[in-house]
């Protein structure tokens, strides 16, 4: 009986702690979230949860695309930077990098990506080898750099508006797998997100 108040106080404290939402700005000062989770500083822009959702969706779409699924051997895919036509500054490589790692993880070796973005460094290394300045030149059989069977790229377009009632941003994310030999678009995927919000009245 003597312990009843202590038990009640402990239960109340635990209850309060359990009710604290980590997504609340009044919650802990640093909170680790899953990248696919919407945080409390979420805005109208392109965010990590969009990146994860879209890149996973595109990776699944590419794996299911006929030219990839039924390819003889491993098609070589080169990534080309995204054409960002929105009002949001972004790292142009981050979406394609996320798609590449999702594909590399799930494709069981069906796709071969090449590091075309590092071609300057790769050429320099090859030249060092073939000139005999470093070892390994004997293994270089002419030009072994692979050409692309397909180019993966994308375009982001947006409709943005702002007024006294708030702000709204619609972003259309499209990705294409293109055959560079004939410019055929062999696969295309898209995702669209619309967000709206309102600044605090003191900033309107």
């Amino acid at each position, binding site marked *: 009986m003597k312990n009843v108040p202590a038990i009640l106080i402990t239960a109340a404290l635990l209850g309060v702690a359990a009710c604290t939402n980590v997504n609340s700005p009044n919650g802990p000062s640093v909170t680790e979230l899953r990248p696919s989770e919407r945080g409390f*500083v979420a*805005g109208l822009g392109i965010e990590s949860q969009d990146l994860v959702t879209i890149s996973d969706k595109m990776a699944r779409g590419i794996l299911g695309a006929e030219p990839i699924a039924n390819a003889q051997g491993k098609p070589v895919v080169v990534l080309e930077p995204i*054409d960002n036509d929105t*009002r949001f500054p972004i790292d142009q490589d981050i979406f394609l990098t996320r798609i590449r790692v999702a594909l590399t993880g799930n494709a069981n070796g069906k796709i071969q990506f090449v590091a075309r973005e590092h071609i300057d460094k790769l050429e320099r290394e090859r030249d060092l080898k073939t000139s005999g300045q470093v070892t390994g030149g004997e293994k270089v059989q002419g030009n072994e750099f692979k050409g692309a069977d397909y180019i993966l790229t994308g375009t982001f377009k947006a409709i943005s*508006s702002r007024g006294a009632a708030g702000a709204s941003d619609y972003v259309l994310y499209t990705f294409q797998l293109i055959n560079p030999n004939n410019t055929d678009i062999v696969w295309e995927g898209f995702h669209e997100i619309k967000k709206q919000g*309102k600044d*605090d009245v*003191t900033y309107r």
Partner: protein
Amino acid sequence: MKFATASPLLCLLFTLWMTACQTPDIQPAPEYSDDLVVEGKRLIAQAPRQDKNLWRLRVGLIALKQNQPTEARALFDAAMPAAGQILQTDASTRMAQSLFSPENVKGFHGEPYERAMGWFYRGLIYWMDGEPTNARACFRTAQLMDALAEKQQYRADWVILDYLDGFISAKLDKDGSAALQRAREHAGDTDLPDYNPAANTLVVLQTGFGPVKKSGGDVGEALVYDAGHSDVAQIRITAAGQTVTTPVFDNLTLQASTRGSRAMDLILARKANVKKVGDTIGDIGTVPGVVLVDYEETRDAGLALLGVGLVGKFIGNSVEPRADTRTWNNLPQHLSFAALQLSAGEHPVTVDFLDTTGAALPDRKKSVLLTVQAGRDTVVLVADR
């Protein structure tokens, strides 16, 4: 008796002697450097929390004008929310709305023209870094900041933002004609040059002093602007045998003053009404109350009236309806832009600022040595002051 008179005198003399002998408290002079960015960072550190962004923007612009883009980038990134971020309610914004706090207790994010300028400079830094698409994204966000203007004709009407949006699109082999058309519509009689997608040297120009906010209305509840000033009407750029004369694209005083009323103005007007009613009740109640208290037969009524008057005065004096007049005060009055096509290598560039008669203002002439790199744009900001 003599001793009794002498002892206070002795005490006084002893005290004066001790005071005279006290080592003066020597305060070492603060060490100031002649680097404005370094000194600016000191001011940022000393500024109250709600004013830090304002100081970051001021110092960021100084860094950009002094060709320190890395410093400028860090300061603008710290000062400005992400492009899509919603400015959320917090303790300071709630306080700014309360009757007893002025508006300037909220964190500084500036008025739309200041936010637009923040995004404009951030875009320039992206362009300087070789990221034109991100620069274009910033110019679009900057233009969107101005979409809050009350009157339709003043919404998103910055000329330079649309012009540069279309210019970057044209340079990326995309269609920039719609943006150029919008820019020309907003430019009115000002003749904007056609795009030259082969231009690789982009000179962004700014002149004069921008507008300054001040409080207006009966009790400081209104936000009004003191106009900025620039006596420059055109700018002439000479480099490698080419001469380009460019007009003024935008006027910041116009942009600031055409914003119209803000949602916050309604809150300040309500605060001002409470203050004025409180002051009026105070005036009506206090003086007659004091008079009535003097007479026995009206003392009770006088005390009641005095009490009401004093409460009115207290409320009137406690309410804070003042508008936020913190200003990003090193912004220019005019913005302009010129594009040149130069070969790779070093080029001395001369910039003449011309008055309305077309005469060069001799004290404003600027000389810049540009290093043009092959395969990328060279972007430079030149200010007349």
